[in-house]
Structures are given as structure tokens and as C-alpha cells.
């Protein structure tokens, strides 16, 4: 080793030692600190967010503050060894304290269940009203799921239904071509299939006991008593008419009612869709207009209600303008006696 390198080596060694000390000190301190964490909930298990946590070193008197997040979780890092007092407070809850001792590098989890200053029992609600019912929720979920399918199938059904009605205009008459009749029959079959599939989900959706039926849904259910039997009768009459035409005969007898029954069925079906789609007042106006076209002695009045919570008002207006002695709708569910 020469003179230059001999002088250089001790200097480098001292520099390395100094650097080691500089990095070693904070590392040593980091290794001995601890983390206190935990979750704050209410006595019922609900998460308490924005709760304040104060961790006080009993030896030094120094406090560290923290707050729970939206999950009710808190974390207080960099706690040295020693005895601490942990205080938790949250709006609407009684404060709580606990003591905890940290050794070096000992992370601790401390959860708190806070007691509400005021509780539901203080308000006088019975336990039966405040306790959840998972079975009832499952029933509601199934009901909603089935009614959603009913709604979608019902809307889809409107398409072949409209096509069937339109094709029906070309299926009868004096024409001897069977193509239009075949098309009309095929569309009618598709309509009936979709209709009864939709009806299945509505009929077998779970009922919720104790529910008073009110609002537009009453009209929707009442119209089912028109389009339901209509959807059974229409294909039967249609089959009779189809058979007669296929034999080269003129459609006669009860089969002649096929078209009229189909139109009434389609109208009731369309109104049923509108009844759960529009506001109460608009529905009663539309219902009034549709029914007036079938009840020829009943004048089409401009005084049907509109807007707001007018389901009851609309029904009252319709009742005020009906002539119960006239029309084939006398005594029907839509015109209750």
C-alpha cells in the first residue's frame, strides 16, 4: 500500500462509520414504535364513523389524536413503549376510555362498542318494529324480481300483440288467401305464449300480508279481469273462425266475435301498461277516453282529473260522468255498482 492510499483509507472508514450512525439512529427508533388500531362500533354493531380517538401517554402527558374513517377504523402509529390511556368520543354516544400498555414493537388492536346517549328504546318503538326480518326481506326480493320479469315480458308481449291486431285487418274479409291468416294465427300464438308467461310471474309473485292495495295498481289489476279472459277467448274464437275459413265457409256464429273480443283485449292490455307507467290523472283521462269509445251512450267529458294525487279524484270524476244504465260495462269491476 502506498502513502496516498494509506491516508485515504482511514478517511473513508470514518465517513462510512458516520453515515452508518446517521441512518442507524432513526431506524432504531422506528423499530421500537408500535401501532394502535381498531374499530369503533355502536352497541348494536353499527359502524361509528368520525369518532375521535385520543391516545395519551401517561408518563409524558402527550396526546395523539385520530379519527375513525367511514368503515369505523382508526390507526394511531408511532407509539413508543409505555402506558397509555385511550379515550373515544363520538356525537350521540357516551365516551369510553381504556388503558393499554405497549412494549417495544408491539402493535395492538383495541375495539370499542359505544353506547348511544339516546336509543330507539328511549323513543318507545317496540322491539318488533325495530328488529330486521331477513325472511321478509327475502320475500320482498323475490316479489320484486318476479314483478320485474312480469314487466319486461309484458312490454315485449305488446309488440306481437300490436302486430297480431294489425295483421288481423288482412286476415279476414273475402280474400281466399291463407297466407295472411297463417301469419295472423302465428302472431296470435306467439302473443298468447308471451302473455301467459308474463301472467305467471304476476300471479305467483309472493304476496306481502297486511298490504292495503291502493293507487294505480288497483286499475292495473282490475284490467287483468278484462284482458285475461280475453286472451283465452280470443284464440278460441280465432281457431273457430280459422277453421270455418279454411273450409271455405263464411265466418259465422260466435266466431264472428273474434275480432271485437281481440280489440277489447288489446285495448285493456294497453291501458294496463299505461296504468303503471303514467301519473294517476293521465291514466284516468286515458281510461275515460278509451271506455267512452265502447260506451256510446256515455259522453266523452273534458272534466277528467289531471295531475297530483288524483287517483281517487280521477275515479270520483269518472264515477260522476258514468251512466250506469248504459253500455255493456255496467256492473263490471271497472264500473263497480
Amino acid at each position: 500500500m502506498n502513502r496516498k492510499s494509506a491516508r485515504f483509507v482511514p478517511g473513508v472508514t470514518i465517513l462510512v462509520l458516520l453515515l452508518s450512525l446517521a441512518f442507524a439512529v432513526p431506524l432504531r427508533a422506528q423499530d421500537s414504535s408500535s401501532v394502535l388500531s381498531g374499530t369503533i362500533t355502536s352497541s348494536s354493531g353499527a359502524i361509528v364513523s368520525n369518532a375521535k380517538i385520543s391516545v395519551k401517554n401517561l408518563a409524558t402527558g402527550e396526546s395523539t389524536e385520530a379519527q375513525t374513517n367511514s368503515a369505523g377504523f382508526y390507526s394511531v402509529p408511532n407509539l413508543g413503549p409505555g402506558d397509555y390511556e385511550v379515550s373515544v368520543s363520538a356525537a350521540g354516544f357516551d365516551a369510553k376510555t381504556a388503558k393499554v400498555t405497549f412494549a417495544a414493537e408491539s402493535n395492538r388492536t383495541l375495539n370499542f362498542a359505544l353506547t348511544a346517549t339516546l336509543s330507539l328504546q328511549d323513543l318507545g318503538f317496540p322491539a318488533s318494529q325495530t328488529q330486521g326480518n331477513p325472511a321478509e326481506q327475502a320475500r320482498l326480493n323475490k316479489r320484486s324480481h318476479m314483478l320485474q320479469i312480469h314487466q319486461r315480458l309484458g312490454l315485449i308481449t305488446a309488440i306481437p300483440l300490436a302486430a297480431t291486431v294489425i295483421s288481423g285487418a288482412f286476415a279476414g274479409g273475402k280474400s281466399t288467401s291463407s297466407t295472411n291468416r297463417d301469419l295472423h294465427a302465428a302472431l296470435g300464438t306467439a302473443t298468447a305464449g308471451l302473455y301467459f308467461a308474463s301472467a305467471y310471474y304476476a300471479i305467483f309473485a309472493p304476496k306481502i300480508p297486511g298490504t292495503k292495495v291502493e293507487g294505480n295498481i288497483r286499475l292495473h289489476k282490475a284490467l287483468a279481469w278484462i284482458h285475461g279472459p280475453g286472451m283465452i277467448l280470443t284464440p278460441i274464437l280465432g281457431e273457430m273462425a280459422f277453421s270455418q275459413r279454411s273450409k271455405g265457409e263464411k265466418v259465422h256464429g260466435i266466431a264472428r266475435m273474434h275480432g271485437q273480443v281481440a280489440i277489447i283485449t288489446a285495448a285493456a292490455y294497453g291501458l294496463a301498461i299505461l296504468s303503471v307507467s303514467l301519473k294517476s290523472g293521465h291514466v284516468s283521462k286515458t281510461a275515460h277516453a278509451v271506455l267512452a269509445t265502447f260506451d256510446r251512450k256515455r259522453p266523452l267529458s273534458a272534466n277528467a282529473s289531471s295531475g297530483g294525487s288524483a287517483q281517487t279524484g280521477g275515479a270520483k270524476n269518472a264515477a260522476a260522468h258514468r251512466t250506469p244504465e248504459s253500455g255493456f260495462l255496467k256492473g263490471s269491476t271497472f264500473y263497480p255498482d
Partner: protein
Amino acid sequence: MNKKLLIVFLLLALPGLASGQSQWVLEKSTLTYHVSHPLHESEGTSHAARGKGTCQAGQCDFLIAVPVKSFNSGDSNRDLHMLQVTRGAQFPMVTVRVHLPEAALTSATIHCDLEIDFAGQTASYKQVPFQAVTHGNETEITGTIPTTVSDFKIDPPKLLMVPIKNEIPVHVDMTWRRS
């Protein structure tokens, strides 16, 4: 005799005066939620809320609770659907906790920090303004809480495949009696 009466009065009154505690009871209420949809605007109203408040050492805590089932929109089908999407059978109560300084209760406009438990979720609303009108020992509080469907992780209901708007403000009209 008068001195004796005064001493008796002070002995009886002092504990109450020293504790500085007052109680509030909700006398009557109207809570109305508002739902917007392209085809429908609907509202559901409940008069079944109950509430209490305690004020001590200059701070007040209020608790108001209302059953989810008590809201009526005039359409039973809609109400049942609302009950289902808000998980109302599993979490049957809406609770609102308010913590505020007692001095704030004397203002005509009270700004409250609310913590609302609904549909199994907790949401906080800061500085919601309420108008306060006091008649004797009764105070009428009115205001609108800017709640949203997403705050409570509720799947927005749909009509004809179109969902309702996210905002479902709740209008509050409450009469509190101080005891």
C-alpha cells in the same frame, strides 16, 4: 317565613339549575321524500317519526327515528318496491342523530351535522340548514335533507328500464317541545 320559603325553593331548584339539563320531545312531524323519474314525480310521506333530545353542559344530542314502512306514496305497489330496494324489512328504521351546541337552538336558522342510518348504511350530512320558529316552549323546524340513493348504496329502482334520479331529497317539518 319568607326566608324559609326562599331557602326551600332554592334547595329544590338548585340541583336542576346546576345540572343545566333540558329535554326535547318530538310532538309531531311530517317527513316527505321526493323521487324523480322521467315519467313520474312521486312523493312518500310519513307522520310516524319519534324523537328526543337531551341538552347538557351546552351540548345537545337529538335522535329521530321513523319506520321505513310508514312512508306512504299513495301507491301500494310503489311503496312495496321502495321497501324492497331500501332493504326496509332487514333495516326497518331510519335514524337521524344530531349533535349541536345548545346556543344554536336559539337561532332562526340552525345548521346541523346529521348522521343518518338507512338501508344498513350510515351517511353524514354537514351543515344542513333548518328554519326554526319558536312559539312558547314549542319550536317548529323545517328544512330539506339532500339525501341521495348512492349515499346508502341503494340500487335505483327502474320504471320501463329507466332508473330514478340519484337525488331523493327529504323535506322535514317537525314540532319539538321543550320540557
